[in-house]
């Protein structure tokens, strides 16, 4: 039977925690920098937080965000279609990130008190 060393387990756990996995939020955060097409979004998100979104997951998030009016498509460039964040999308992203910021500040404060 294969055994897993404690170091490997810790690395895997840390890696899982580092990978923020809320695809719609990741797409919004990526588009906050400017319009991008799918390929650029995947690379940007990987650089931003280490999460490698699969193409199916990415387009699932894009379809839902577009239907909710949080992103919008631009004119296609050689079969690739860029998307940009809408004003409503920016508002939703800002609200979500503010909540996360408050949450992380409170959590870190509690950890410091330990």
């Amino acid at each position, binding site marked *: 039977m294969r055994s897993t060393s404690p170091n490997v387990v810790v690395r895997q756990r840390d890696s899982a925690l580092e990978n923020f996995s809320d695809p719609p939020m990741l797409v919004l955060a990526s588009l906050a920098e400017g319009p991008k097409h799918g390929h650029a979004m995947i690379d940007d998100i990987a650089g931003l937080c280490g999460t490698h979104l*699969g*193409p*199916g*997951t990415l*387009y*699932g998030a894009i*379809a839902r965000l577009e239907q909710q009016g949080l992103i919008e498509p631009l004119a*296609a460039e050689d079969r690739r279609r860029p998307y940009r964040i809408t004003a409503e999308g920016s508002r939703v992203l800002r609200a979500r990130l503010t909540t996360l910021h408050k949450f992380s500040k409170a959590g870190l404060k509690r950890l410091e008190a330990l």
Partner: protein
Amino acid sequence: MRAGVAKLLVRLYPRYWRDRYGEEFEALLQTRAGNLRTSANVIWSALRERVSPTPGLNQGRRSVQLHSWCMRAPWAVFGLGPLLFLAVAYFVACFILWSGWRMFLPQSNTPFIPVGGYAVFYFEAGKLLYYAAPILVGWAVVLVCARQNPKAVWPGVGLVLIALVGGTTQVHAYRAAGGPEHVSLGFALGSFLHGIPGGASHALMILSLTMLPFVVWRFQKDLASR
């Protein structure tokens, strides 16, 4: 990823989705590495889109006819229809048993004896159809239910009926001395109601297996809406 594989993967998505995103998605797939992980991700996402379509994207394009039937005659879509499909599957399974008996065991008085060679595959195909039919029909009911979102009563009745029929059906095969082979189906409902554990546990197993995808789908939907 190769253009042919990308095209094939895109075709897994529903038509309304392909009409909107197909070309750009295919272009994206062609720029990504064609590994197993990417393919699995696309297959899973396509399956999710088919079971739980993006809200708003397929509006006015989903199967209007089926939706109309689900609203007007849910008893037919979720009760009678699945039972008819089950009956057809059982008929085919019985035909396989009967024809296999004639072909491979012409001297035997029963087809339920150990066989060898190609006969094993033939009889096993019939057996597989017989045991898998209620589960597959139940999954079809769950799929229609997930896509059309009807009231839960009729799909529930349909699933229980399928489980009852699947759990109580018995195959009888006999041959009168020197006569032709007879294969028939019977329902052991009377003994089932008196608590025969075999039939009850079989029906419960079918019900659990058919309900499982529905429970997973609801769980996923609840998670996604949080």
